[in-house]
């Protein structure tokens, strides 16, 4: 549920909160999936154009990791408690600062600014073998490839369009292509994301999950495909396959059948 109808509203609300609580700290999660052997980031699209990362403002005094978990659950997890994902929050990859009540943000606190209005931190979120996402009705969940984000400030803004650089130091281990055929019974043929959330969620999810989905759609920047994630390697295996430090395993998120 979006609280503001316009940018001006949003900035006005930010000002009010600043007077009450001081500098706003917000946390966003970078959830990575893999498609065609290229990393993709999950973004939430509001309306037809504006994209944002899942996340939001911390409550005063709240711990960053706990706050991010809370926000991820509220944006991406079903209301029913049996479907809560176990969010694994990784390292902080970027910090952006807002010096004034304006839309512009910088990746450093500008000199001579002693009272920034907002500090936004981006964290990597490791997805596990299968994830169950439920997205609010007015939002669309997109998986956008890094090459689409890079240098695309106009469409995605400075924070999201520079994520490819901030992830560049990782060497991605694309997991998953080889296990696609192993378990045909346990993944869906067509679409796998659940789009709506409402009080009858649990029943609706079960219905949609067990039958081929034709009505639901996940908007992808490219052709929709099913997402399947194999089991992540155990620690022993992981060491053999990834001898270097700094290598990040990327899984594909998907909907599991229960």
């Amino acid at each position, binding site marked *: 549920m979006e609280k503001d109808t316009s940018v001006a509203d949003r900035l006005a609300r930010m000002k009010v909160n600043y007077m009450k609580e001081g500098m706003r700290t917000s946390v966003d999660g970078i959830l990575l999936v893999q498609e065609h052997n290229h990393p993709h980031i999950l973004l939430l699209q509001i309306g037809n154009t504006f994209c944002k990362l899942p996340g939001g403002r911390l409550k005063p005094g709240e711990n*960053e990791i706990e706050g991010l978990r809370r926000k991820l659950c509220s944006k991406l997890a079903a209301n029913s408690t049996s479907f809560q994902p176990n969010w694994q*929050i990784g390292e902080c990859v970027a910090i952006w600062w807002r010096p004034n009540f304006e839309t512009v943000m910088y990746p450093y606190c500008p000199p001579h600014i002693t009272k920034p209005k907002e500090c936004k931190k981006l964290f990597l979120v490791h997805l596990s073998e299968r994830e169950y996402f439920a997205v609010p009705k007015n939002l669309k969940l997109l998986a956008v490839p890094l090459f689409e984000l890079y240098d695309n400030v106009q469409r995605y803004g400075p924070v999201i369009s520079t994520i490819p*650089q901030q992830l560049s130091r990782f060497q991605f281990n694309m997991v998953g292509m080889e296990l696609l055929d192993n378990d045909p019974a346990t993944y869906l043929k067509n679409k796998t994301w659940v789009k709506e959330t409402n009080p009858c969620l649990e029943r609706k999810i079960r219905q949609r999950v067990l039958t081929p989905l034709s009505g639901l759609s996940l908007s992808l920047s490219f052709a929709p495909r099913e997402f399947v994630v194999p089991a992540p390697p155990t620690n022993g295996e992981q060491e053999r396959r990834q001898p270097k430090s700094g290598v990040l395993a990327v899984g594909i998120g998907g909907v599991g059948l229960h």
Partner: protein
Amino acid sequence: MEDRETFHCNDNGDAGGGSNVVEIYPLSRYFFGSKDAIPDKDDCPADRIQRMKANYTARGMRTCVHGILLVELFQHPHVLLLQVRNSFFKLPGGRLRSGESDVEGLKRKLSRKLSSEEKVTDDDWQIDERIGMWWRSDFETLPFPYLPPNLHRPKECTKLFLVKLPTTRHFIVPRNLKLLAVPLCQLHDNNETYGPIISGIPQLLSKFSFNIIQD
């Protein structure tokens, strides 16, 4: 500035990395001298492309390592850049030899560009983490911060490392290069002057909290 202290991200030990706090020292703590010019290997850009292509045929993908050295000036981090012929800017660094590790190669290149000849063999550079990687499909094309999906034979890979400077140091720079300290706020978004790699440095450094050690 007391207010600023509270905005540094507290290292709450999140799952991924080590400490994100980096100490930087005022520019006034460092001393600069000069040494003999390092002759240019190429007379013009076209020559350089030729040389790169010949090297690629002989040795395969070119791997370059660059160091990001930071100092403080006016309460703001500055990156040390080398300026060639009063025109273009580059980070201290260069090409790895075959079989050389990233860290060894970077230390060698840093000494070559920033230390006196006598110190080259026992120089003491503290190379910290790798903060970025750029890939090129061709020597004339722009680099990308990811391996493009259809690119199976990249021609060049450039790796950026954070280098932690000691509290004081003597930099000896070849006469034909100028060493500049450029503030992050000038690099940010300034693709035209510095190119994508250098102008992208502020975003790569954003996660670090800089502890400015004043006298």
